[in-house]
């Protein structure tokens, strides 16, 4: 029973990691808190669902979800956010307005029913892990989460783009002064972060299902993770996701009606000691 719940917590944490890593990348580098991230997750899920059902291919659904949401991210960044650059609060509130529009448009297109993204044949059923029968698909999510962590870590630590992103998180002006087109790095990061929201939507859509308020729920988790982990830090997101994922899972088992409350405790304690989060740096 306990190991079953631990696995539930870990797999949920892996999903949260996929979504929140995109969120924190954008927050860390561009200083933009993208409150439309939850809505992008939801739309990614819907796109993945539609493509998945039409073509029968889960992978194709994932690709389309990522591309589709990256396109939405492009519109948001280049079409709207460019007018309010430099003012954090106006940016945040603008993305909030954008989230309302996206969410409502999703309601128009896909309606209010809840959908579950079809899981490919190979990932259905359960396998025996540590003496419990556990759904294969959720283990797959866990693997994807871990792979994504490794990939992002390699990207940030071992590539030129990653070096630029890290440098940009610390001091964007200085990077620009040394002759780098930081705008392009910003845009790439924004698209990458958006695509991750889309991917998260597809993966979450297959075991949490998609419905009109799912975007708000996933957004709260992402916010909690970034508040706990600290802005723009990859280890921060990983630790935050694990904490929130496990706490939420055990909270739901122990206090089913107050599960939301359980992520509130650690956040409160943490803020009292580290207002910028575990791995956050002052700017």
């Amino acid at each position, binding site marked *: 029973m306990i190991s079953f719940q631990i696995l539930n917590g870990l797999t949920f944490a892996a999903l949260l990691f996929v979504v929140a890593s995109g969120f924190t990348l954008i927050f860390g580098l561009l200083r933009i808190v993208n409150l439309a991230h939850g809505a992008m997750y939801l739309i990614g899920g819907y796109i993945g669902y539609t493509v998945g059902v039409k073509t029968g291919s889960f992978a194709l659904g994932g690709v389309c979800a990522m591309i589709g949401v990256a396109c939405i991210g492009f519109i948001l960044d280049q079409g709207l956010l460019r007018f309010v650059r430099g003012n954090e609060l106006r940016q945040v509130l603008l993305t909030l307005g954008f989230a309302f529009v996206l969410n409502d448009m999703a309601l*128009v297109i896909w309606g209010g029913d809840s959908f579950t993204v079809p899981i490919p044949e190979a990932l259905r059923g359960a396998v025996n892990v540590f003496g419990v029968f556990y759904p294969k698909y959720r283990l797959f999510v866990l693997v994807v989460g871990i792979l994504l962590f490794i990939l992002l870590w390699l990207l940030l630590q071992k590539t030129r783009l990653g070096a630029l992103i890290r440098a940009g998180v610390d001091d964007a002006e200085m990077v620009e002064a040394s002759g780098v087109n930081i705008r392009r790095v910003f845009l790439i990061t924004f698209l990458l972060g958006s695509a991750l929201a889309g991917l998260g939507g597809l993966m979450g859509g297959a075991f949490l299902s998609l419905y009109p308020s799912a975007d708000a729920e996933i957004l709260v988790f992402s916010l909690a993770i970034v*508040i706990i982990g600290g802005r723009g830090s990859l280890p921060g997101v990983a630790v935050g996701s694990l904490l929130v994922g496990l706490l939420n899972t055990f909270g739901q088992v122990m206090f089913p009606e107050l599960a939301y409350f359980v992520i509130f405790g650690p956040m409160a304690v943490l803020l009292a000691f580290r207002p910028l989060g575990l791995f956050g740096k002052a700017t």
Partner: protein
Amino acid sequence: MTDTTRTLTIGLVTVIVAALLPFGLSNYQVGLATEVLIFGILAMSIDILAGFAGRTSLGHGAIFGVSTYVVIYLVSNGTSPVLALAAAILAATLVAAVFALLAVRTSGVYFLLLTLALGMIVWGICLRWTQVTGGENGLRGDIRPAALYDHRVFYWVVLAATAVLAFGIWRFVRSPFGLTLRGIRDSESRMRSLGYNVPLHLFIGFTVSGFFAGVAGGIYAFFNNFVSPSTVALTQSVEGLLMTIVGGVGTLFGAFVGAAAIITLENIVSSSTERWQTVLGLTFIVIMIFAPEGIVGKLRILFRRRKPKSQALPKA
């Protein structure tokens, strides 16, 4: 005329005009006007923080809604309306105090995120704690006292309460305490080095602001006779903040202009389409790009009667 007497005179004239309004309006329009007053108080309470402490809150809808829930729950279970209202305001103030304890250490975007997350937690609890909150269905109860059944009577009572509250808030932001808050808004580090206890001031400011949001929420319960998770949802906080911003952050009484503008818009849009959320979102985007100082703020800049006191959103 000094500033003070002028503001008081304008306020008095406005209240008298507002008191005469119901004679020219239909029952439905009186209802809308009542709604404007209630949400005007909510928007003013948000303005205490946004305009005078430089902290933009996205959690006030939740504080407001907690109060609504408590009133309806208590009155439906046999508590007297007055006692229920008092308990509700106390509950909302306590929630605000908890929010404040966590939020005073943050500023700018972090403050916004934290209040948003806290508000969402309240929403999540209201949605899931079905035994008490009725879950998705919410709580319904015909709780308005018989004496206030008439639309006009209820409007006048709300107007009287609004006048008192608005005066209270106006006094509050002009008090030495309010001036200290403004000092914190303009330069936190300077206030700290002058020996002011910044977190304590913010804590009290937030709690007081939550008190007013709670009063608005309690009154709303008697207006609406119904509460559901959407009353505490993010949309509520967003609408409240939008009213503050449309009216003009830091103008205080602009809150009522903003509330009137948004509620009128909502009614026009809702009568022709179901896409209110889209319109709300688009309004937000347009305001952020073109007029972050709001209607009253913009007017003040246009007329430039004196150096503009209003300001665009604090620059985080």
